[in-house]
């Protein structure tokens, strides 16, 4: 089976999926920071 080749910098057929993965990761990181802040607030309140 011939492998499809994409030159670096060119948008491949799955570029949209990679963008979605990046967006998911950014969402997850932001959620983690929010949760850390909430844990701190909860602990300080108790």
């Amino acid at each position, binding site marked *: 089976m011939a492998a499809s080749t994409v030159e670096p910098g060119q948008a491949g057929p799955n570029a949209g999926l990679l963008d979605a993965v990046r967006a998911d990761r950014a969402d997850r990181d932001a959620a983690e*920071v929010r949760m*850390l*802040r909430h*844990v*701190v607030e*909860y*602990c*300080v309140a*108790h």
Partner: protein
Amino acid sequence: MPEDEAATYVEFGRDTGLALAGVGAPCVSEFAVIELAAALGMTTGACKAHVGKVLEVRYRLPLLWKRVTRGELPFWRAGRIAEQTICLPQLGAAHMDRQLAPVAHKVGPAQTERLCQAALDHFDPAQAEE
């Protein structure tokens, strides 16, 4: 459990709080940790360790905390450093924070341990000897 063997004692209906992070970080009610553990789906022991790291980073490693909240540093890296600094006095933790904050995204556990031991030797030689 007999009252005199408890880690915290109840006073006026509230427990006195657990010191889960180093000196200077706030203590946390044991009841609150139990409730938080349930909310996070963790065991109480795992939650104590997690809260200890979170509070250590927030209150004693403020430069690392800033990088975490800016999204520059994954919390697991800051937490791994926090595990090492909990035993340090406040000045030692502040020293570690200044040393490691700029490189925390790439520093390894062995290097952190060496720096921590050096900080303990310098800032608390009595404990370092033990």
